[in-house]
């Protein structure tokens, strides 16, 4: 059997039903095998679009995404999605073509050292050196991508090896002597954590994307409801705890709510679950949560005590640990009354500092209102992807996610151009769902080309561009911290997004009236096929509240 045909068998054995990619010289054999393999292949317009689509697919479904590119530029175009998947722990297998082995190291046509270039940004990578290694390498790649802390795995296959004949036998086991993630939390540590929690008077559950990856949302809610424990989520954790819930404090961090950030600031015990104390969460590290002790639950031991020393570390899978922590906590029968004072304090912050903005008097659309309108138009029941910038923060603040895997964005790397292809991948993975993308006039232009992919393949996504004519977040920082010296942030009103949508075979709409916005958005969502909506919003609006970079949470502004 040709090695590439064995590759197809391996993909099918892994349950792969769709891949995103773009062919070239070095992966022609693989594409020949796709011709009749019975695996859906979506031809993207740029490899980066394919990579982000695979991420969107993985984030929406929880399954491993697959993206393909050829050697050289095909692989280098995948570098951004690979790094993005690494930062946000997204399980994606990247299959790259490589030049023939006799050309390796000779600067051959379309040769790039893909393994070398991607080494710092992968969970693992495998360079194929013998065609008989291919089946095992593919299964190892999927196993590593999906287990433990998920992440990207690159498999680089030289063209001549991929067309070689190999004896193929299904691989049923994966042997990796250096890889054994700890999933069971230590019982003594869990018991200690329960005791600490039972004695805390000002506890906060600080929840990250790890709870989404672990599919541990239900278990989290059970722990929180065991005793009215307050919950806040990171940008990537949104949806792990319901966005409408009495114990929900809102997102924390740079553009989080005051209630969430002040609660962290005054907490005596913080339970971090699948979160990694990123600088956008902690602000000034030395002044972060100064009164708190930390319980840190994470499947990646290297995250524990990386930025903030943990008092009770628990390494393992949140889905395994949280129910045991809840049981231990319940068994202690903690005094519920001890949290009353804490809730009075939190309720005070919630009352005094709700998320707010000054709405316009006339038809002008404030960007925050545009998100509220989208929330209303979708009934809160859409998978929402986003690009990176102000619109992303407003999306995180004003759209309330009821469940995990409903909010898909680039959190760690902050990749502009992520949103549209991610929506494409999410829609392919969840065809029954409404999938919308919140974008900006800057971000959308970074992977706009995939709109044609959507039209061609009937991938029905609805893109809402909050168009303010600026690189809005950069402009905001220049306004606040650089004396309003607006340098290289103004884009004006080009391109014409309606015409551009039409050129891609999609429907283009331009909205500028607040009074009809909800209705107009409903109509856009009901329009068949991909729709690109240019929402004209206030040009100079800032995201608030804000912890200025290098400041402490208690000094939030706006």
């Amino acid at each position, binding site marked *: 059997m040709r090695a590439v045909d064995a590759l197809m068998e391996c993909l099918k054995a892994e349950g792969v039903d769709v891949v995103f990619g773009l062919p070239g010289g070095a992966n022609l054999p693989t594409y020949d095998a796709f011709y009749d393999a019975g695996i859906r292949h979506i031809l993207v317009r740029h490899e980066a679009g394919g990579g982000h689509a695979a991420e969107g697919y993985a984030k929406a479904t929880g399954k491993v995404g697959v993206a393909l590119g050829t050697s050289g530029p095909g692989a280098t175009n995948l570098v951004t999605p690979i790094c993005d998947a690494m930062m946000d722990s997204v399980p994606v297998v990247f299959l790259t073509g490589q030049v023939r082995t006799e050309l390796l190291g000779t600067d051959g046509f379309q040769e790039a050292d893909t*393994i*070398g270039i991607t*080494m*710092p940004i992968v*969970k*693992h990578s495998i*360079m194929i*050196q013998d065609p008989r290694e291919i089946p095992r390498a593919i299964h190892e790649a999927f196993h*590593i991508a999906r287990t433990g802390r998920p992440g990207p795995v690159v498999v680089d296959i030289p063209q001549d090896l991929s067309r070689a004949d190999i004896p193929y036998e299904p691989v049923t086991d994966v042997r*990796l*002597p*250096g*890889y054994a993630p700890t999933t069971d939390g230590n019982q*003594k540590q869990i*018991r*200690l954590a329960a*005791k*600490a929690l*039972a*004695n*805390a008077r000002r506890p906060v559950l600080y929840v990250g994307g790890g709870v989404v990856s672990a599919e541990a949302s239900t278990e989290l809610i059970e722990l929180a409801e065991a005793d009215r424990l307050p919950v806040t989520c990171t940008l990537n954790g949104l949806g792990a705890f319901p966005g409408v819930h009495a114990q929900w404090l809102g997102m924390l961090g740079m553009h989080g709510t005051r209630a969430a950030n002040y609660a962290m600031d005054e907490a*005596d*015990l913080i339970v971090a679950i699948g979160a990694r104390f990123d600088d956008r969460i902690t602000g000034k590290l030395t002044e972060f949560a100064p009164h708190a*002790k*930390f319980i840190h639950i994470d499947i*990646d*031991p*290297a995250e*524990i*005590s*990386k930025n903030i*020393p*943990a*008092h*009770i*570390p628990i390494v393992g899978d949140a889905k395994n640990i949280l129910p045991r922590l809840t*049981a*231990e906590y319940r*068994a*202690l*029968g903690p005094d519920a009354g001890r949290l009353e004072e804490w809730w009075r304090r939190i309720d005070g912050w919630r009352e005094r500092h709700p998320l707010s903005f000054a709405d316009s008097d006339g038809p002008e659309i404030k960007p925050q209102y545009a998100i509220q309108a989208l929330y209303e138009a979708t009934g809160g029941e859409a998978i929402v992807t986003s690009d990176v910038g102000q619109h992303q923060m407003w999306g995180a603040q004003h759209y309330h996610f009821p469940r995990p895997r409903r909010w898909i964005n680039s959190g760690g790397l902050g990749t502009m151009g992520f949103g549209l292809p991610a929506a494409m991948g999410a829609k392919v993975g969840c065809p029954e769902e409404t999938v919308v993308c919140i974008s900006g006039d800057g971000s959308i232009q970074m992977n706009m080309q995939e709109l044609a992919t959507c039209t061609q393949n009937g991938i029905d996504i609805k893109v809402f561009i909050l168009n303010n004519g600026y690189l809005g977040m950069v402009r905001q920082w220049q306004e606040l911290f650089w004396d309003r010296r607006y340098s290289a942030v103004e884009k004006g009103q080009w391109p014409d997004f309606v015409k551009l949508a039409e050129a891609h075979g999609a429907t283009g709409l331009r909205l500028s009236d607040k009074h009809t916005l909800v209705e107009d958005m409903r109509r856009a969502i009901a329009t068949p096929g991909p729709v690109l909506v240019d929402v004209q919003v206030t040009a100079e609006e800032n995201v608030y509240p804000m912890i200025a970079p290098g400041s402490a949470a208690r000094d939030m502004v706006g």
Partner: protein
Amino acid sequence: MGEPGTKEILSLEDLEAAGNLRTGRRHILALTVENKPGVLTRITGLFARRGFNIDTLAVGPTDDPALSRITITLDGAVHPIDQVTKQLHKLINVIKIRDLEPADTLARELALFKVAADGPTRAEVMGIVDIFRAKIVDLSKRAVVIEVTGTRAKIEAFEQLVRPFGLIEMVRTGEIAVARGRSET
């Protein structure tokens, strides 16, 4: 910790943070890794990326052809060693890491010294070589090449003593180490 459900008092004040502590001493890490291309690059790349400084690094085969041993020494006053080992453990090709206890470890390094030694000074240099149980491996009219094996401290002491004679060149292998006793490192 007692049995589940027992209501022992646990005061939050008594909890101490673990980890991220600088040990203040030199550490020898013995890594067992898969003998595959690129593994060393992954390790050195990780050190560079995370800003960890390597003092010495020695790589070689083991009794099992599928495995290599990498011995790394680094300064625990500068780096949180537990963060270094945890990051190394994340590399799939790294099978085992041991942070060797100094008291239970045999560490050796080999060094070659090329020392200017002509006429009257030669005998003096040879005297030092004798005392250190070192070996002269090359002799020419104006220089000797000396092989020294031993602990890092011994090699550094030797260097200090021969430097005044005119140290033309010195090369060192970096330390390799095994645990004392029967157990495998």
